[in-house]
């Protein structure tokens, strides 16, 4: 297992390199620089600023020096917020986004797996149709629709929950987590229902029944392990999606996280910020994928013995 992990980490390096290079090229090929949008800056000052940030050097030189910085963990200064480095800004915003993503993932897993397993126990009955229709609704209602509606109902009309901020007022984390997590809860519900149905039709479940085990034991001990495999496989892409989805949710609920920063930086052509955050996100996602793959390996003893072959 350790060898597998190291193998994957090594494979991740060229991936990251590609990510960095692509982002670098994309960012620098955009028309206009970081300072051209500010009309208030006279040309000489602009040139001086560019020289200070080394933007007047040839592109490949900027690339090499940037790579060098990245390897030492220095993402450089932010262009839009003078005096603050990208590292600082990431460190400030990341804990917030991480917490949001974590709560959303919890919501998604608990509700999703619960609904899916319940539905799979009595397929094609009300116990199945109701959760699955709700799940379909969750998938079809995007976060930028659900969020405002929840805000409208619970925040403005009923005034039960706060509608902005993070950590300022108790309960202000509830709506954002639910908004972000619902779509994923719905998808996970469908995945776990599918996985459980597949497993419950297997011969070894019949054997377990023939041994006289109770239904609840069969579900928890025998069926869940195999039935949740599609969910575990989904964890990696889910995490990537949660990070992306945080943009919208942080915008709607005024949350000072990285997601909001990212869109703003993209609009502002804040090169270093964009690059830094992209690399940061990509690294996180790769790590998370590795973790979920390790979890999948742990759960499935057969996989531990298979190397190449189909995925």
């Amino acid at each position, binding site marked *: 297992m*350790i060898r597998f992990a190291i193998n994957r980490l090594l494979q991740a390096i060229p991936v990251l390199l590609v990510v960095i290079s692509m982002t670098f090229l994309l960012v620098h090929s955009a028309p206009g620089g970081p300072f051209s949008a500010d009309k208030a800056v006279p040309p000489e000052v602009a040139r001086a600023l560019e020289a200070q940030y080394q933007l007047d050097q040839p592109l490949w030189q900027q690339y090499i020096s940037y790579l060098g910085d990245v390897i030492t963990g220095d993402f450089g200064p932010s262009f839009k917020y003078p005096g603050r480095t990208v590292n600082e800004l990431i460190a400030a915003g990341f804990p917030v986004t991480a917490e949001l993503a974590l709560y959303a993932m919890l919501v998604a897993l608990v509700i999703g797996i619960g609904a899916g397993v319940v539905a799979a126990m009595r397929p094609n009955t009300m116990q199945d149709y109701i959760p699955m229709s709700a799940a379909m609704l969750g998938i079809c209602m995007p976060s930028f629709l659900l969020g405002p509606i929840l805000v409208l109902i619970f925040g403005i009309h009923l005034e039960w929950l706060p509608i902005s901020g993070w950590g300022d007022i108790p309960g202000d984390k509830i709506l954002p987590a639910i908004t972000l997590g619902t779509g994923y809860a719905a998808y996970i519900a469908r995945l776990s229902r599918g996985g459980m149905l597949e497993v419950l039709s297997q011969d070894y479940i019949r054997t377990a029944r023939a041994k006289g085990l109770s239904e609840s034991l069969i579900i928890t001990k025998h069926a869940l392990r195999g039935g949740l495999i599609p969910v575990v496989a989904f964890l990696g892409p889910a995490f990537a999606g949660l990070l992306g989805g945080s943009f919208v949710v942080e915008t709607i609920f005024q949350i000072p996280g990285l997601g909001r920063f990212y869109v703003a930086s993209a609009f502002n052509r804040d090169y270093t910020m964009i690059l830094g955050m992209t690399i940061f996100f990509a690294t996180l996602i790769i790590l998370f994928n590795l973790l979920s793959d390790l979890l999948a390996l742990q759960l499935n003893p057969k996989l531990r013995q298979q190397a190449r072959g189909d995925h």
Partner: protein
Amino acid sequence: MALLEVNGLRIHFHTRNGVVKAVDDVSFSVDCGQTLAIVGESGSGKSVICYSLLDLLPKPPAVIEGGSALFDNEDLLTCSADRMRQFRGNHIAMIFQDPMTSLNPFLSIGEQLIEPLIYHPHKSLRLGRNDARAEAIDLLREVGIVNPESRFNSYPHEFSGGMRQRAMIAMALISKPRLLICDEPTTALDVTIQAQILRLIKNLQKTRDVAVIFISHDLGVVAGIADHVLVMCDGKVQEQNNTDAIFYQSQSDYTKQLLSAIPQGAKTTANRSQPGAPLVEVSNLKTHFRDLSIAANKSSSQEHMIKAVDDVSLSIQKGEILGLVGESGSGKSTLGRSILQLVPPIAGNISFEGAELTALSSNQLTPYRRKLQMIFQDPYASLNPRMTVYETLAEPLLYHGLANRKTVSQQVQLLMDDVGLARSSMRKYPHEFSGGQRQRIAIGRAIATEPEFIIADEPVSALDVTIQAQILALIVDLVERHNLTMLFISHDLSVVRYICDRVVVMQHGKLVEQGNTEQLWAEPQQEYTRQLLAAIPAADPVQERQRWGRH
């Protein structure tokens, strides 16, 4: 005193195409310590009966329309769910056909073994983990698993097929049930392993005083172990009696038909092999595969190769039927595919009519493809589900220029006559046919190009015994009429003896022995061949009992 008494059992299945009477008024009884065999072909309802005893039938489609099943005077069909849970595993246990899919791949064997003990419905009878483990290990030893302490923590995929079935048997017997139901437990196993498992079940039955219901489609298998036999067809009981009566004095036509369908004895048709240069000559053939089951942790630099075919040489005369026998993993299928260049060998020569096949490019090979054809084992997977019979049979004719648009319809119809298919079903799709009929289509496709050499890879192994007899007769007839040479691959030695002139025996990729069929049967030279022959179950109770007594 009857342990189990079934009376007038009726079970119907409500499917999309109507109501199917899976079990139609079946009655039988099983005494303590006795073995009842329920024999029938697919669709006879034999498994459905036993699943209903333990309430394992899927309750929408299946409905129990009537009858009773008294176990110790309690009706299993009407008892409560809790009571049924108490019966399962503790009083009545069941083992299934495919031990690979019937064991949970995610839990260790030991864990699955002790479950009936640690989750016993009567809380007072539950054992602690340590005690349960000790009992399980003893039982594993009793069923013949070596090193049970370390094997306790293994996973199902780490066991061989025979070991898995032994583990299943242990799992079934651990709560000391009074009745053991075995649903085709040896059908998926090699013939030598089958013999071992049958012997194991028989011994365990004696030492533990367990009644056994043994379900099988193979009369030969049950001849040695059953006290009574129940013969079923289409949900109805055809005949039931003690074993000797069934085999030696069968009353019903169906039973007689079943018995006569079992290939017995030597080949009766003439040996048509022609002397002279062999038609096909295989020299030092080697086909290796990369082993894909290497652990992810082991170093990737050493690649293990599976030597599927390991330096095999044989020759086939024109007009003869050569049998190729072996158990699973022997490489017989791979050898067949290598000869046809479906799987590229890594070394060795294959010559056909003097031409060296391995040296030809795929373009050069095409005209030879006409002359070498193959019949596959699985009658469903070997036909394109989206092509009608007409399209499947017309394809080779049109592709090789043996017919044009105008004549092909006529020729397809002739082909269908040749293999015994009704002309009117020409526009049907494979899924609308039965297994035997699909195999006829596959055979039709193989002879469409008027080949000279056909490799039949287990062509009847997936078929019921009566259908098997029909298809074998068809094959023998076609070989004779069309002057074919055939390589007949099978694990079923009785079938091979019945139609092959010569036989080649393979084990682990190597050729163990070859020779004239009857000579091989009478005087096998190699130990493995002897083992194989000794393991064949004979549909003759007296002979079987003698064999059991001998060991």
